[in-house]
């Protein structure tokens, strides 16, 4: 019998909702059978904790006296340049931003010890940050210089706003060349000496609702240790990719844009990360509840690491030069076993997404729902699925000749 989200919420409010994590539901579905499990279970909670570069946060720091127009000026927080192209005292901090004087990769591989991701972590941890600003001065905003300590609690608004999180599946990265390479998939040793992957597999949010039936615009989620919302599809959302019989994409597909109030988040779930030779990012903890509306949803959430496959991609040559193709397909069960076989060679595997922490996210969210402090929300609109025709396109470059001012096709 089908359930509605309102009915599930009534059960949550009365403390009677039956909730499992996306890992637990696998054995529940096996022992009870899918039909019975679908009738009994109300919610399955998912989780992931991994580096997600397209993350950031916007802030309103309040007006100084006399007033200063940060918009159009230059501002740093702990030496991290922030984007000020807004009204007087709003700005955006990107997770990958780094100080102007960071040597970057001039001494290769660069260490990237501190960046936007670390700044967001420090602010959420309640630490003081140094705000330095230079502005041009106007009649209504005369001040041209500002130097002050600032904390998250001092700000008016502090909102995490991530334009692409929760990638539905991802590549497995290897290095076919004869030199070590430093990538966003970690340090890859030459001649297939290691492989890295980045997904929580059977616990990952979008792999438990592969065709976006319940996760949509307005879905309430666990975000950074607090409560957040799905804002819309994420950038590079690419639903129309090859899928398995159960609808699970065989490669990177859907993504989500999410946001939430930073002041109620926790630094355990927003961690700055430094990738040698690559740069800075932010590891974000996300958990999404999947309502078990019917047997189809139960079937989706009962997906196991054996059912989810990913493509092995060479990051020395194929990835940088956009050469399509895969060196093979492996399951997450194989990836988590510690080694896979690529080109007849046994290659040790390592994750970048923490499965241990993904479990913690899913069980935290499960507890919130079980104790009645977290209700499910009905999506306002779905995120586009396979039939939407949305495609992730490469950039078609059109050269600019003779300093032309008008584009010519």
């Amino acid at each position, binding site marked *: 019998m089908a359930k509605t989200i309102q009915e599930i919420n009534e059960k949550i409010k009365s403390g009677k909702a039956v909730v499992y994590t996306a890992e637990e539901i696998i054995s529940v579905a096996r022992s009870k059978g899918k039909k019975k499990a679908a009738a009994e279970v109300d919610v399955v909670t998912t989780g992931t904790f991994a580096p997600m570069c397209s993350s950031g946060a916007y802030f309103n720091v309040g007006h100084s006296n006399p007033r200063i127009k940060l918009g159009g000026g230059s501002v740093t927080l702990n030496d991290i340049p922030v984007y000020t192209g807004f009204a007087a005292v709003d700005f955006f901090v990107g997770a990958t931003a780094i100080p102007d004087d960071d040597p970057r990769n001039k001494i290769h591989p660069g*260490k990237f010890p501190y960046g936007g991701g670390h700044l967001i972590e420090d602010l959420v941890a309640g630490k003081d940050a140094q705000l330095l600003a230079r502005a041009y001065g106007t009649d209504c905003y005369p001040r041209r210089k500002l130097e002050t300590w600032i904390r998250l609690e001092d700000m008016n608004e502090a909102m995490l706003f991530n334009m692409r999180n929760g990638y539905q599946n991802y590549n497995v990265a290897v290095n076919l060349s004869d030199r070590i390479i430093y990538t966003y998939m*970690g*340090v890859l040793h030459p001649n297939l000496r290691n492989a890295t992957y980045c997904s929580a597999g059977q616990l990952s949010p979008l792999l438990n609702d592969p065709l976006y039936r319940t996760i949509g615009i307005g879905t309430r989620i666990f975000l950074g240790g607090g409560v957040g919302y799905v804002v819309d599809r994420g950038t590079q959302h690419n639903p129309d990719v090859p899928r398995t019989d159960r609808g699970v994409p065989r490669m990177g597909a859907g993504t989500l844009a999410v946001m939430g109030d930073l002041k109620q988040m926790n630094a355990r779930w927003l*961690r700055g990360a430094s990738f040698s030779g690559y740069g800075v990012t932010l590891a974000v903890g996300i958990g999404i509840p999947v309502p078990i509306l019917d047997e189809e949803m139960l079937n989706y959430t009962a997906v196991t690491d054996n059912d989810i496959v990913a493509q092995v991609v060479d990051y020395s040559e194929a990835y940088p030069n956009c050469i399509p193709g895969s060196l093979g397909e492996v399951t997450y069960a194989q990836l988590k*076993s510690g080694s896979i076989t690529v080109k007849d060679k046994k290659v040790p595997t*390592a994750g970048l997404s923490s499965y241990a922490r993904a479990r913690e996210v899913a069980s935290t969210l499960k507890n919130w729902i079980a104790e009645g402090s977290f209700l499910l929300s009905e999506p306002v609109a779905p995120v586009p699925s396979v039939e939407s025709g949305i495609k992730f396109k490469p950039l078609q470059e059109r050269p600019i000749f003779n300093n032309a001012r008008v584009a010519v096709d």
Partner: protein
Amino acid sequence: MATKRLVFNFPPHLIDQPVTYQLITEHNLKINILRARITPREWGRLVVEVSGKKQNLDAGLQFASDLGLDIKPLAQDVQWDAEKCIACTACCSVCPTGALSVTRQDMQVSFDHDKCIACELCIPVCPYEAMQIEF
């Protein structure tokens, strides 16, 4: 047979003395040098695995510390910060000795001091600065 992984800190005045040679020939110890850093006029550091009969090992280490060597177990120099570690497992595939390993059941990471040879391969691999080595 006893085996110890140790860090030998050589004061500057001992750098030109063949202490390792004496440990091998006079105390009958097997010495595997895992890392070495010797800088003129500064303290030199040697990471070694020393093995031999218990009494030879004790006598050899007594001889070395009487000479003025500062000897510490290797474990003190390599630190895994469990608070900073998120258990992503990135380090585990590059660790050559299995000192950093994953319990496959719950995908938790653990660090075994006794297996660590302070090769530092884990240092650039950890995005969260969870591994720290003083060397």
